[in-house]
């Protein structure tokens, strides 16, 4: 019991940091599912490409462990390129791989998505690097380590959590408070009826892909600054975890994805810390199965669209 009490706060913090990343990626799955009822399995790889774009910009701006322009500006540029690049990549994928199949049976876009995912992974592996690539975070962000009572975490970890939560709040406001968010929700509910109401559905879908992918790109930047290393395979497992988080929260439900992500991160951290690292993934997917058995629509009840 002593062991538990001594280690619990630290493992909780570890889990929340990890979970905030899951949540950020889970939002992309849920947004796109909400609008199109399709699982964009390439989403984890869009996040990977975002992380590589950020690493590339960082590599250009940092020489011999010193940033050639002010570090804050460098980080801002990384975000701009990664967020913009990932967003455009998402839009491009939608145009090329998904739009022609929008009225095909449900299996077709799913298979295309897996194809896009494999393509992105292989492309980065062959054209960029099969080995992990460094993000020179030492030169870009302060390496301060925070001590609060017995809990230790790097400043970049806290930043990851805070930025992720802020983005989620902003997204929530965008979807539920703005006119365009209204159009998104209308499209999610009934695409045909939305068209009749004068909503440009194609544009809504395009913007949804941009926003979802941009969030993934931002996740890539935050990840790179926290963990300093990116590789072509990083989107695979994280994509599956984020997808799990989205399903646990109730796929299609934005708040559900956020909570699902955080829950999953904490669960993973606590299982690793107090049961065994071997069983981390076992428990993650056990949680998924349990939720699906007891509440097939996910923890947070009514999804955004009730067609699911």
């Amino acid at each position: 019991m002593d062991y538990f009490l001594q280690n619990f706060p630290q493992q909780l913090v570890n889990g929340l940091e990890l979970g905030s990343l899951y949540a950020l990626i889970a939002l992309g799955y849920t947004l796109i599912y909400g609008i199109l009822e399709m699982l964009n399995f390439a989403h984890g790889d869009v996040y990977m490409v975002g992380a590589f774009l950020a690493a590339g910009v960082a590599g250009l701006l940092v020489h011999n462990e010193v940033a050639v322009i002010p570090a804050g500006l460098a980080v801002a540029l990384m975000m701009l390129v990664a967020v913009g690049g990932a967003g455009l990549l998402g839009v491009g994928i939608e145009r090329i791989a998904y739009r022609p199949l929008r009225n095909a049976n449900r299996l077709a876009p799913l298979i295309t998505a897996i194809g896009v995912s494999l393509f992105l992974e292989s492309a980065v592996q062959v054209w960029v690097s099969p080995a992990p690539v460094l993000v020179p975070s030492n030169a870009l962000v302060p390496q301060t380590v925070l001590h609060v009572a017995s809990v230790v975490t790097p400043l970049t970890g806290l930043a990851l959590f805070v930025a992720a939560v802020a983005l989620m709040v902003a997204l929530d406001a965008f979807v539920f408070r703005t006119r365009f968010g209204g159009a998104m929700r209308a499209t999610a509910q009934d695409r045909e009826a939305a068209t009749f109401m004068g909503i440009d559905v194609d544009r809504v879908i395009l913007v949804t892909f941009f926003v979802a992918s941009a969030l993934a790109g931002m996740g890539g930047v935050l990840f790179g600054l926290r963990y300093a290393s990116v590789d072509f395979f990083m989107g695979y497992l994280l994509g599956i975890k984020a997808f799990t988080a989205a399903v646990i929260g109730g796929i299609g439900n934005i708040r559900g994805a956020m909570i699902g992500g955080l829950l999953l991160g904490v669960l993973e951290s606590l299982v690793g810390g107090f049961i065994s690292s071997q069983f981390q993934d076992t428990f993650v997917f056990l949680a998924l199965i349990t939720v699906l058995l007891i509440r097939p629509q996910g923890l947070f009840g009514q999804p955004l669209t009730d067609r699911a």
Partner: protein
Amino acid sequence: MVQPRILVLAAIASVGLAACGGGSTPGTAANKPDKVQIAAEGPFTGDQASIGAGALRAIQLAVKDFNKAGGVNGTQVQLLIWDDQHTAQTAQTLQAKGISDPTVLGIVGPMNSGVVLGSIQGLQEASPPLPLVSESASNVKVTDQGNSVAHRVNARDDAQGPADGKFMIDQGAKKVYVMDAKSDYSTGLADQTEKYLKDHNIPTMRDQAKAGQKDFATTIQKIKSFGADWVYFADEGPEAAPFVSQMKAQGLTIGQNIQFLGTDGEEDSSIITASQGSYVGAYATNITADPAGVSGSAAAAYVAAYKAEYGADSIGQAGPFYGSAYEAAQVLLQAIKNSPVKNGKISRADVLSHLGSDSFNTIFGSVKFDSKGDVTGGGIYVYQAKGTQMVVVKQVSG
């Protein structure tokens, strides 16, 4: 538009056929074989591409160099690339092509112990058996199961595990946190090392990392509460950099309040850069020599040739086995060259018997196999991260 393209293709194909036809007529020399093929097998794409891709480049370079020097009595060796993605099922499918084609004379690889163990039966039962020379499969079972086709140029887990355990004890280890990365290779090795430590009354705690894991916060907290003074991580490498960076960020600095011993992939100097220096002071052992880290002009010339072929920064991405892969290819190619040519054909049975009996000249000096197929005099090399380089600090012969 389609028609001309087909014509061009047909033209190319006929030229190719003509070239092949020229090759199959009996050569001027009576001992010139018609066709010689070998295969490179390993995880060349997928999540283990970081170890496979560099090895493949090394094998391609070895075949190119061998062909430039005249090939097998004037016949150019053709290299087949079998990307097994480190699964035995894929390996079996790929190997089936080689088993049925008698001009496929041997395999450089497979790289992963699990793949060798899952596919060796088919190679052994082929007629004649299809020999393999692995550059990195270290699980003891690879050569202990009595299959004559199995050879390897790297050292074994039961040499490396005790050597690793002894090294830590000699350095004053009191409590060791032992980690593996969930593969036949790393789990087997970590078992050997942990057993050695326990037999010498060193308390250990066992944990696992996942392939591609980046977040180690949970693990690091466990290392702290266990009070370990050494962390032992049996891994091919890609997980080490984020792991040690986060150890430092959470207050465990290598060389100060913690020591670190890694294995094969972790003697890679790119980890020092990738961890932004957090790795400095860490040790790593390898079952094969790093050509850039050993003395000897042949090894140095190879490193220079590799850089010339693939670019100056290619060594950083070459992974841990680019030396042993070249060595294994050299061994197989020489065994083929030493085999007799009868009616324009070389028999796999002869290649196999030459692999067992001959000595081979490699970039690491002369190499010979024992009766099981293990390399004689294979060493365990201990490296340490100093400055921006991994430097050999000790060699333990296995």
